């Protein structure tokens, strides 16, 4: 007899049974049919929870007349789909699709402008429910998070799998949106699993089945492999994870830099990153991927400046100042290059970020072409210490005055009201 465990997602009834048992797949306790069976169901405790078509679900919750209509949340600044409900998805609408294309596919769709404030409020409510299940919640975005439920069995009187089913039920009944669960033994597999059974899904990848499952999957399933990296991997003959496993670790690192190492381990289902609970903010950063690769320093600098402004804006809003500045570049062949520099005093200023990052950029380019640039600050401190007058830099006081004046105008008239000369191109 092969043992397996069955969990009823409705009444949380758990039953050990023969994996080959025949008979009706019904919960013996409530006769429900939403059953999860997996031999390792009682042993796994790392989960990824992802709300289904989150923005669209919130809008449908708030306007019941939309229930059976295709709903697209999007438009806004960039004219792309932020979220499409499952009705709209039937017509082929996908998130990140340009709006005109989405409307061509689904002309009857109800388009709703995103209301981020509302979504983040709902996201916070969901997070509160997650924290009832475990303190180890690592939010990935406003509607998804990793949860580590190790050691919670005695607290809740039920195993992690049942706690998760209960949590998702609460999200549905108390908040009014549905979510999908991925349960496994590490973060990247949990993230893959949550996508397997959407919407209202519950998928399990155990130690015994994860590797054979991965073998057949396209490389794009790996977290961090986007469209262009996938295209490049395929061009190199690496279409599936099985292809990837044939390549030596150092070859992968030589070809794809830090990402190569990640590819090597993920292909083997290995991921030793722990679930980091939502502690203090440790760093603030912004990055952008170019439409076409850039190698010319001037163009790279033009991309850098708005990112510095973005990071500075977020520091000022969130009440932080950063002491170390990080520059990130990704080469056309996907190698990630990072450089950092510690400042004598913490800063909140875009101008200081730029004056620190630009010289590092100049030194790092070395004639290579890049597809991405990012800038960030870490070692965050209280802004009370930020940007003192620098006796060794007579113009620093004047630059500080300029930035504070720009901030004051923007606070009154909006972020677009005023641009520094550097921002025009």
């Amino acid at each position, binding site marked *: 007899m092969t043992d397996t465990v069955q969990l009823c997602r409705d009444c949380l009834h758990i039953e050990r049974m023969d994996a080959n048992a025949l008979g009706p797949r019904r919960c013996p306790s409530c006769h429900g049919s939403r059953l999860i069976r997996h031999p390792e169901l009682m042993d796994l405790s790392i989960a990824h929870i992802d709300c289904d078509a989150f923005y669209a679900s919130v809008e449908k919750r708030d306007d019941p007349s939309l229930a059976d209509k295709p709903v697209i949340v999007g438009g806004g600044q960039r004219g792309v789909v932020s979220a499409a409900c499952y009705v709209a998805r039937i017509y082929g609408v996908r998130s990140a699709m340009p709006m005109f294309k989405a409307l061509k596919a689904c002309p009857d769709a109800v388009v709703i402008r995103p209301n981020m404030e509302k979504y983040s409020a709902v996201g916070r409510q969901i997070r509160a429910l997650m924290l009832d299940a475990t303190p180890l919640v690592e939010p990935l975005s406003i509607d998804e998070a990793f949860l580590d439920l190790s050691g919670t069995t005695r607290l809740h009187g039920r195993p992690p799998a049942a706690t998760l089913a209960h949590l998702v039920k609460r999200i549905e009944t108390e908040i009014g949106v549905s979510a999908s669960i991925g349960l496994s033994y590490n973060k990247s597999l949990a993230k893959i699993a949550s996508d397997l059974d959407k919407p209202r899904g519950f998928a399990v990848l155990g130690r015994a089945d994860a590797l054979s499952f991965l073998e057949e999957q396209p490389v794009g399933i790996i977290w961090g492999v986007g469209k262009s990296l996938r295209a490049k991997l395929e061009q190199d003959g690496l279409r599936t994870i099985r292809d990837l496993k044939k390549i030596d670790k150092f070859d992968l690192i030589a070809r794809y830099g830090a990402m190569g190492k990640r590819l090597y381990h993920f292909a083997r289902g290995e991921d030793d990153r722990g679930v980091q609970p939502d502690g203090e903010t440790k760093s603030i950063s912004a990055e952008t991927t170019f439409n076409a690769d850039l190698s010319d320093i001037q163009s790279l600098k033009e991309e850098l400046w708005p990112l510095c402004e973005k990071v500075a804006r977020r520091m000022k809003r969130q009440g932080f100042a950063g002491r170390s500045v990080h520059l990130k570049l990704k080469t056309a062949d996907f190698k990630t290059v990072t450089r950092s520099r510690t400042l004598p005093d913490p800063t909140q200023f875009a101008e200081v970020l730029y004056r620190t990052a630009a010289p590092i950029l100049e030194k790092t380019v070395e004639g290579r072409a890049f597809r991405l640039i990012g800038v960030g600050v870490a070692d965050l401190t209280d802004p009370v*210490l930020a940007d003192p007058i*620098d*006796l*060794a830099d007579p113009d620093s006081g004047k630059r500080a005055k300029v930035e504070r004046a720009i901030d004051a105008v923007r606070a009154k008239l909006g972020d677009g009201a005023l641009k520094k000369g550097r921002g025009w191109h």
Partner: protein
Amino acid sequence: MKLTIERAALLRALNHVQSVVERRNTIPILANVLVEARDGMLSLNATDMDISIVERTPAEVGQPGSITAPAHTLYDIVRKLPDGAQVDLDATGGGDRLILSSGRSRFTLQTLPTEDFPVMAGGDMPHTFDLDAGALRTLIDRTRFAISTEETRYYLNGIYVHAVTEGTPALRAVATDGHRLARVEIELPEGAAGIPGVIVPRKTVAELRKLIEETDGTVTVTLSETKIRFAFDEAVLISKLIDGTFPDYERVIPTGNDKVLSVDRVSFAQAVDRVATIATEKLRAVKLSIDAGQLTLSASSQENGTAVEELPVSYDRDSIEIGFNARYLLDIADQIESSQAEFILADSASPTIVRDAEDPGALYVLMPMRV
């Protein structure tokens, strides 16, 4: 080469040159000191390729010649020899060995050929002036505490020396790390009016200061835009200069500050030190609350608690509250020799000037902290 010298004289000379030798060296010859005997003199030369120190001292030369030997080992041996010992250095035995014998001790040291020892050429140095050793000590002592250790702004990693020819002519030394600035001047020596502004590296400052500790004579300074040479008694120090532009520091020295606080230097330093015990390790912020006739120093930290101390002062302007890093206050208080320190303030966010009430040559600028 063969010579005999008294241990104290050898130790003194070795002590002066050996500290320029880096503890870890990738180039073996740079770990060695060049030992040269000629015309009744022993000459020792050590270098790290940026600084070269040569010191000469009388010795009984048996056979002229030269050799290089490990500087730190040689120094350690001589240091451990008994007081009053005679030391024989003998490299005449061949086999690349230097034999050091003294009393019943005998050491055989590995050597490297003299030809491999890098000689630092001074090159063409068009400017020369003489400086009293005491005045040079003042210039260094009053400024070196403010030298920056920040590597990215390498041009702050030294003392900026230049001539002021407008107004009262002066030779000026300036150092800053961005938080505090020290500016000290002495009367312009003859021949110094035309010198370029140069930045003397921190290590050179430290070596030079050690060399001139005991001398009372005149130091001859020779310099070009890239190198500087200090010569006195029987010692010569040649150093590269920092190739960079020192900031236009005059623009950060406030001119409009008008609130003058005068305080007893010793009791102020002691009070700052006491109050700062409470301040957090990292920030060391001390608050100065200045009212007519009274200064209240205070510090607080969430972990430790609070501290307050009052001092009588001379002050008759509007009350002001201003915070400083305690370490910076103590550093500056250390530089003041007379009994009174003067703080010249504008407001709680602007640079503050600190002066020695009796020394018009020294001026310090200190950035406040927000407290």
